[in-house]
């Protein structure tokens, strides 16, 4: 019994030694031993082999249904005007006349949206073109080959028994270091040493957390990094976005103050560095929020604010409407585009399906997180532009850079219903089409009369 205990203690000590000296310390200095990059290269090769193997397996077993790539509808991508014209062409209608077949256009559009619509699919994880050897992404698993199943089994073992304990240890170390470090720095008087130390503490802690997720982050265009006194906006996929961005710079976070562990972390963070945390009651008052943020930005020496204007997590295939509130504060906007590689791990947080803890567990048992971050050149509001147009301009820039689809839909449709104003838009558009065709046909009749 004694021997078993001493062995266990020795193993534990060795484990902590390895973790601290080979991972945590290099991480804090921003160095890497290169193990993660080798791991990712091996993984990518393995997944490519698995894809080829699955495709070959499907050809050999035709009874096994393969997933359809994209959609089962043949869509006619025309505007309402073009399609209405086609429907009404066969009939000679007088101006402003309604044809029974007009309803078929709306019927067709309605059925297309029932089978496959652009909005609801953004609130669930992206469908992969090929299986990436994770049980959770397995849509249509059929036994293809023994080797594939063996690799899947090894993958399960490696992810759950080797990587997961390692990642949990790192996460605990990282978060405790954040709380302890920021509290200690908070005791110092307000001078430049304090700010420098606070930056060091934040950076090192986020680097450790990034290692806890096996995150490989590639930053592009570092010359456009957000400056002090600016506002950084980015597309939102997961709470981990914060860790990803803070690995390369210090930001003042904006958010609601929570209870529990999250609240402890938030309260200690604000001791060393002026983050902007709101009480729940304050969040409802938009004016109070805007004025506080404006005051923060006006003091040009404070860290750039980090805001996610979509307001909710989207699944990283598209960028949804940027809410105009962030763009009314003033100051320079530094847009950032974040794109996760879906093959190695699904970073999207589906908050209606998983709570925070199960989400973190799932992320820590994925293969890895590989992410590209693009810093875009700063943008300011131009003359004659209002906040909504400015927001749309920034959104298009972010979508274009990140290779994401640019949607005008509101992210809050995840939970809420769409406003009636949009239905009235559709009705107005139809009326305009009919009336326009009325004026065209009237011109024809007039010309015939004159000739």
């Amino acid at each position: 019994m004694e021997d078993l205990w001493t062995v266990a203690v020795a193993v534990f000590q060795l484990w902590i030694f390895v973790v601290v000296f080979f991972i945590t310390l290099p991480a804090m200095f921003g160095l890497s031993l290169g193990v993660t990059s080798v791991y990712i290269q091996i993984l990518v090769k393995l997944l490519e082999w698995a894809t080829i193997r699955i495709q070959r397996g499907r050809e050999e077993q035709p009874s096994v249904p393969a997933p359809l790539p994209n959609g089962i509808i043949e869509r006619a991508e025309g505007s309402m005007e073009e399609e209405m014209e086609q429907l009404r062409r066969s009939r000679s209608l007088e101006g402003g006349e309604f044809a029974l077949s007009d309803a078929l256009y709306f019927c067709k559009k309605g059925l297309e949206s029932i089978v496959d619509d652009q909005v609801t699919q953004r609130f669930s994880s992206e469908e992969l073109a090929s299986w990436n050897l994770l049980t959770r992404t397995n849509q249509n698993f059929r036994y293809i080959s023994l080797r594939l199943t063996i690799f899947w089994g090894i993958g399960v073992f490696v992810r759950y028994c080797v990587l997961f304990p390692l990642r949990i240890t790192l996460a605990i170390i990282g978060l405790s270091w954040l709380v302890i470090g920021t509290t200690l720095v908070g005791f110092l008087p307000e001078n430049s040493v304090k700010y420098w130390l606070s930056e060091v503490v934040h950076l090192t802690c986020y680097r450790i957390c990034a290692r806890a997720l096996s995150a490989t982050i590639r930053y592009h265009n570092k010359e456009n990094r957000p400056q002090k006194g600016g506002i950084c906006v980015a597309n939102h996929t997961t709470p981990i976005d914060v860790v990803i961005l803070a690995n390369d710079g210090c930001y003042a976070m904006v958010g609601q103050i929570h209870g529990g562990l999250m609240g402890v972390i938030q309260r200690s963070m604000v001791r060393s560095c002026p983050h902007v945390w709101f009480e729940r009651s304050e969040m409802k008052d938009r004016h109070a929020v805007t004025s506080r943020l404006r005051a923060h930005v006006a003091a040009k020496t404070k860290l750039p604010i980090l805001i996610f204007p979509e307001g909710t997590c989207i699944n990283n295939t598209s960028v949804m409407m940027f809410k105009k509130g962030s763009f009314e504060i003033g100051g320079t906007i530094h847009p950032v585009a974040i794109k996760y590689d879906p093959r190695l791990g699904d970073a999207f947080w589906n908050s209606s399906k998983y709570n925070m803890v199960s989400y973190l567990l799932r992320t820590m048992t994925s293969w890895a997180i590989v992410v590209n971050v693009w810093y875009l050149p700063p943008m300011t509001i131009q003359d004659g532009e209002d906040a909504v147009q400015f927001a749309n301009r920034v959104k298009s820039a972010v979508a274009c850079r990140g290779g994401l689809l640019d949607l005008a839909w509101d992210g809050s449709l995840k939970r809420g219903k769409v406003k009636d104003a949009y239905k009235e838009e559709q009705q107005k558009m139809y009326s305009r089409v009919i009336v326009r065709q009325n004026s065209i046909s009237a011109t024809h009749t007039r010309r015939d009369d004159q000739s």
Partner: protein
Amino acid sequence: MGSIVSRLLSRLLREEEIEDIEEIKKETGFSHRKITRLYRRFTSLDKGGNGTLSRDDFHRIPELAINPLGDIITNGFFPEGEDQVNFRGFVRTLAHFRPIDQDNEKNKNPSATEPLNSRTNKLLFAFRLYDLDRDGKISRDELLQVLRMIVGVNLICSTKTPKGGI
């Protein structure tokens, strides 16, 4: 640990989640792949998780909610007087919109039942868009009601006498 293993194994040997897939294939003419995909769409719309869709589930689709005829289209899925539609009914309604099989039109077998996506059945579906009370006739009021739905407040009532009912 045991529950994790058994869960993994049951997913490995996953049985068909859709019952009567062969019957649905025969009735609707959709291929196996399409039925699987439609089933996945059905379950993603089914927020209650009870295997049926209610009218609310349809209205949750934003593109359908802004469609002026959204309510009528949704009604087309529900059988007379019912509030829930199961997967079979869902696929059966969608089968109307499958492109017409060319060979069906040519070799008309009078004794065989018409496929769901025949021309007649498509026209019947379109007719039902206007026949709101499902009495087999389109009255003038029904026509006006549908027109009002499509045009909304942009409708100007003229003093000309409208034509009679269909």
